């Protein structure tokens, strides 16, 4: 079966399923909007110079990360609970190809975050929605979604080995927001954080979005995001293959 067709159909189905989950509506719409509001008020009251569009973009990306983290981290566990994991593993395409549209769908939910924070900022905080390079901004958002989706694939294929992997998901939200510089520049953080930020797709994604919005050159950041995405895919390929091999060998596929 054509891999692109598998990806498209699975991505659409999962996006529609996730869009009906109250939990994912919360983390992809309400949570980013509330965090954006907090940041807006802090920005204004602190007298920080600069446009609030900076905050909107950062808050939107925060929502993207939350959706990816919680959606992808529990992906395989949920498939196991629903008794559909065996079907996915037994399907003709490679398991990593089967999972990829799932994780990209969770990252795609982040599009709701971006739209919600931009609209919320415009309506309630008079955020000027002026983009220097609107097409490049859209490309930056799409590349970031893909990068986050594949990073989610790494989580999905790694966390599956730990029964209580959601415990790791819970604690990665704020640190990645900080390390990626979505709202706070990495230069303000302790020095050891900067090298960590280089290996996170959100770092390059938010920089590309800002460059596209404020008139810089987003191409180098986009290239970095794409390169990281390829590295993530390699890691996920190895992780998923390892999971599949071990699960078949030990007959533990359906065990919780």
């Amino acid at each position, binding site marked *: 079966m054509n891999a692109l067709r598998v990806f498209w159909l699975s991505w659409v189905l999962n996006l529609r399923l996730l869009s009906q989950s109250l939990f994912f509506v919360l983390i992809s719409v309400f*949570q980013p909007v509330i965090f954006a509001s*907090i940041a807006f008020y802090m*920005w204004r*009251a*602190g007298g920080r110079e600069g446009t609030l569009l900076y905050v909107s973009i950062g808050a939107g990306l925060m929502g993207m990360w939350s959706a990816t983290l919680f959606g992808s981290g529990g992906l395989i566990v949920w498939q196991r609970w629903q008794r559909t994991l065996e079907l996915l593993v037994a399907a003709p395409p490679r398991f990593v190809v089967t999972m990829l549209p799932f994780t990209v769908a969770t990252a795609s939910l982040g599009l709701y975050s971006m739209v919600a924070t931009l609209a919320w900022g415009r309506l309630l905080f008079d955020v000027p929605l002026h983009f220097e390079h609107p097409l490049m901004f859209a490309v930056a958002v799409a590349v970031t979604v893909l990068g986050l989706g594949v990073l989610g694939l790494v989580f999905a294929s790694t966390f599956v080995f730990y029964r209580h992997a959601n*415990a790791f998901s819970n604690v990665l939200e704020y640190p990645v927001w900080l390390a990626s510089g979505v*709202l706070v520049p990495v230069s303000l953080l302790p020095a050891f954080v900067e090298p960590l930020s280089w290996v996170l797709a959100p770092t390059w994604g938010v920089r590309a979005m800002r460059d596209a919005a404020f008139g810089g050159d987003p191409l180098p950041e986009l290239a970095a995001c794409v390169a990281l995405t390829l590295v993530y895919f390699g890691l996920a390929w190895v992780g998923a293959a390892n999971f599949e091999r071990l699960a078949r060998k030990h007959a533990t596929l359906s065990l919780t």
Partner: protein
Amino acid sequence: MARVFVVGGVISYRALFNWVRPLSYATSMLGIPVTQLLFFAYLGRFTGLRDDEFYVVGNAVQATAMGGVFAMTMTVGNERQFGTLGPLLASPANRAALFLGRSLPVVLNALFVAAVVFMAGLLLLDFSLPAGQIPALLLVVVVTASATTGLGLLLGAIGLRAREVIFAGNLVYFVMLLVCGVNVPLDVLPQWLEWVGRSLPLTHGLEAARRVVDGASLTDVGGLLWTEAAIGAAYAAAGFVLFRLLELEGRRHAVLDTY
């Protein structure tokens, strides 16, 4: 009744609190509040709004809300999900003891979580706490944690009928983060949002905590503490009344175990 209150409360906490496993507890109840503190403290430094002390006190006291809101939502609402609601309500146990006993371990847990976040502030940020203020701060945290537990009781009671009450718990938690003065001073918010914040638990307790850290005595913050306690008691009373109403309605229409 005392046994229902104490033993029943502890057992329900261990059985129904989703984060009771050590790793889940460490990441959810300790990791999230500490990383939240660091995020907002650095955001505060970047925006130039208030010093580290503001965010340490705000997020440490707000951490008690995590336990108060989520724990009570789980330990009451989860009875229905796990199919133990029917036997529970069929028992002759005093409802007040049954209900309120679940809040005791939550308050104790909240104290521990707040202490960890304060420690993180001391070690990682520019924050200091006079040792002489610790007893007063302890009392403020206990009162605030108890008050947020009252709100959690109300949400938990809603969970007797609502299917995804954890959604409501999460939403309330995030709203409290915005309107209760945790990271945004109340005078920065629009008037209507400030009113919302002042009608919720946590707001007055947090204000008392900040004054205590700045050197105020318990006498100085007594009014705030009584207000916090009264708000928490009102939510707890509303939660208890709602619990009883939903219980009676559930018995009448045989919907106690529907999910």
